[in-house]
């Protein structure tokens, strides 16, 4: 039995070495995933400056919609109206086809690397403002897509519309800014 365990450990060492070589020569990915700075939403930041701690009171946690990297419905609608941001739908294809924000590019969080060319193909560059959304609520797909865009594709201004599709449907404020089908 000891011989088999030793062989198993040896196999682990060899395969780990193969992983190191593969990453050094091919992926060149960071071994550790360190936190990265998040952009601050422009309009929300201007409307609601962060509270000062000069009075000695502890600074409360910002509400989710004003946290770094998060945008609220007002900014989403403003960006849609003036075309100042690109929208990415991080939900799966069947959800996208049932309805999405008009012009949004489909990039499911389960196929980011496979479908990233769709984003570049739509003329989105790394410096452009990008807003990612998914189903809303506790949906994590938009955060995963945004994190990968910032971390591994060099996008510098990626924000998450956290309330996402649930709010798009329930707010009634999007009107004809909603499309159905497979096309943006």
């Amino acid at each position, binding site marked *: 039995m000891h011989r088999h365990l030793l062989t198993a450990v040896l196999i682990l060492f060899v395969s780990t070495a*193969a992983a190191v070589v593969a990453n050094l020569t091919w992926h060149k990915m960071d071994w550790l995933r360190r936190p990265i700075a998040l952009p601050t939403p422009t309009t929300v930041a201007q409307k609601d400056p962060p509270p000062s701690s000069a009075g000695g009171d502890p600074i409360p946690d910002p509400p989710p919609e004003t946290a770094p990297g998060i945008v609220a419905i007002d900014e989403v609608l403003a960006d849609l109206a003036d075309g100042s941001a690109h929208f990415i739908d991080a939900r799966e294809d069947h959800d996208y086809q049932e309805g999405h924000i008009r012009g949004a590019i489909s990039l499911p969080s389960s196929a980011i690397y496979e479908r990233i060319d769709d984003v570049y193909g739509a003329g989105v560059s790394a410096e452009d403002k990008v807003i990612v959304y998914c189903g809303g609520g506790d949906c994590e797909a938009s955060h995963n897509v945004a994190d990968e865009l910032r971390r591994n594709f060099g996008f510098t201004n990626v924000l998450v519309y956290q309330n996402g599709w649930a709010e798009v449907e329930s707010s009634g404020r999007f009107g004809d800014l909603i499309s159905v089908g497979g096309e943006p």
Partner: protein
Amino acid sequence: MNSRNPHALRQVVAHLCAIAVAGVFFYAAYEKIKWPGQFAIAIKNYHMVPDLYLNLMALVMPWWEVAAAIALIFPRTRRAGAILILGMLTMFIVAVSYAAFYKGYNINCGCFGKDSATAGWRTIGLDVLLSACTLASVYLCRWKRPAAAGFEVVTDA
């Protein structure tokens, strides 16, 4: 079939089980090796690994799968490969049970890259089936160690 070996059928079944399990592991590793960033997201969805170590795990684990699968194919290293594969399958079962049943997450299991099923009973069933095939590949296989001084030594692996 080799007429000198009364366990020929068992050997064939053992090899078929080993090749089947190895094939599944090769297939599972392929997309993870191709896109480790995508696999890191799949691991992240389980909320079991600190964010700091997601990339490390995503970069190394697919290579463990490949090496264990190769080891399982060859009778001489089959037990070592089986130890690794059973260890990984146990880890997968624990992770899926924690995420799907204890925490109630509705997540993609991440087992086969983009083609993965939702983490749940089906995933656990597949892992149990693979574990059974791995055990069968070991216990049905009797590897002949090279004879010394004219003796033929038959061992379990």
